[in-house]
């Protein structure tokens, strides 16, 4: 082996490890800092009144109830459309589809759907649901827009969960005279359910935290009352945080941090539930 000069390779190793470790430290310290800081600054703002009252004094005082309720409605609305469609699509891919070019096309479409910028979903929702189908700026339009955005996450997580069910379960069911659908509904789905629920929650978590797709499809700057029907516009936590941190002068800082903390608890709470379901299902799994 030719070498121009000899460097102690253990010195190189130590340098390399030091650099890599430094990169990791510089990545993790800000992450912990971000969460710690918001919790520390936001916690004093949170009170029963903050969570349960309407905003007052041009949103500079009072609570954020309509934003919390709005995000809850939007998440629920998104679930209504994306969960059945996503699970059915996953069943098709895992149980029915053959490996041919059509299936390949579907997979490419799913990956692309996952990559489309959220603001482009907002444009699409505006063009189709708000204007073309005339649903107006409403919970319905926003939920439909968010459902399409959530779909790829739900499909791929549910498909993975379905595929993880051992083939022998299906073989036994079929050999006992079960039809294909009976096998899926009575054997495969119940086994895959924890995995599917985890995927659904992770998808909805993303929908709950998004601002850009609801910007022109359903979000309201301020509403003096709670939305009464799916055709009403609504306030939402992420959009509310955007509004009070950029659009309103002399906004009390404490309300801003409080709103950020409530949003994080809402979103990461869903994440924790999903993680909990997943780890419990793994521990209980017999196969």
């Amino acid at each position: 082996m030719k070498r121009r000069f000899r460097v102690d390779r253990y010195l190189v190793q130590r340098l390399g490890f030091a650099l890599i470790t430094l990169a990791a430290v510089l990545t993790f310290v800000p992450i912990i800092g971000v969460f710690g800081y918001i919790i520390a600054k936001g916690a004093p703002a949170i009170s029963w009144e903050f969570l349960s009252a309407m905003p007052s004094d041009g949103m500079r005082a009072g609570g954020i109830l309509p934003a919390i309720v709005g995000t809850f409605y939007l998440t629920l609305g998104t679930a209504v459309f994306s969960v059945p469609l996503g699970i059915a699509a996953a069943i098709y891919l895992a149980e029915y589809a053959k490996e041919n070019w059509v299936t390949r096309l579907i997979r490419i479409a799913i990956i692309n759907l996952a990559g489309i910028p959220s603001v482009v979903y907002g444009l699409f929702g505006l063009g189709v649901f708000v204007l073309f189908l005339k649903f107006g700026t409403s919970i319905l339009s926003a939920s439909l827009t968010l459902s399409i955005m959530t779909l790829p996450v739900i499909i791929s997580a549910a498909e993975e969960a379905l595929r993880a069910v051992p083939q022998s379960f299906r073989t036994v069911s079929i050999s006992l005279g079960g039809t294909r659908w009976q096998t899926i509904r009575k054997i495969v789905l119940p086994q895959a359910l924890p995995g599917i629920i985890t995927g659904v929650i992770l998808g909805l978590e993303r929908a709950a935290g998004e601002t850009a797709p609801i910007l022109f499809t359903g979000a309201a700057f301020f509403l003096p009352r709670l939305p009464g029907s799916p055709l009403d516009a609504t306030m939402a936590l992420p959009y509310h945080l955007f509004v009070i941190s950029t659009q309103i002068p002399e906004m009390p800082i404490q309300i801003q941090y409080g709103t950020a903390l409530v949003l994080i608890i809402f979103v990461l709470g869903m994440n924790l539930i999903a993680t909990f379901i997943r780890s419990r299902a793994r521990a209980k799994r017999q196969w």
Partner: protein
Amino acid sequence: MDKSLNWRETIITAVVKTCGYSAVVFVILIFFFLLREGLPALVEVKLGDLLTTRWYPIENHFGILPLLTGSLVVTAGAMLIAIPFGIGTAVFLSEIAPRWMREVLKPLVELLGGLPSVVLGFLGILLLSPFLRVFLDLPTGLTALAGALLLGGIAIPTTVSIAEDALDSVPQSYREGALAMGATKWQTIWRVTLPAARSGVLTALMLGIGRTIGETMAVMMVTGNAPVMAIKLTSIFSPVRTMTATIAAEMGEVANGSTHYHVLFLIGLVLFLISLAVNITASSVIFKSRKRAERVLS
């Protein structure tokens, strides 16, 4: 088998199959609507006028070059952060950190991935940009640099998660072989493990770029939103405006069907095509390993 059961099977199969095709239908629908609302802009504004450097819609100046360069500068800056830190962290988690540390830290990165971008933008306004203004002695902290730093943070969870999976799926025997030949741990990482995981690491970077270019809220909140050309090296220290931020900031105020409205859809179409290109390139690598493709999306 009785007949009603047979019928039910046929209907259910048809329903499930239709749902299975839905993803393809939606991609086509999105493309169609962007074309329908965006293409009229090419009739109303001459192509030559679109490719100018002045974005001032009130006086019918629709030059999209400042927005393109704004997006490029912020994305390039974000990648300069995400590449070393993302890959470094992935290598640390997969090759250096003890098992318990990895079990704690990897979910932490993924937690950052779940943080709504509006929260990052909020912190960017309150903490990052005042810090940059004082630290670098700038007239304003709302600059391309602030956007790049936040976007780096947004790209890192995607990059780390996928790159770590790729490193993790390199067979243990590769490492053992290198170590047995007398290579140090570092030589093994640098010359064996990383090259073996190359395609997965590249995919991780591609998808990180994809997230970065499409990111809207955080960028809109911290980049200062000035549609000026960002072509000088010092542009990183001045305010810029990205394509995504322009759509988000202006769409709420335009009249439906106006030229401005059509141009904003045209910008959306450009973003759609960029994300299509990035994802098809990345997925051509992913298809070599199905399992990885599934993790990308979950």
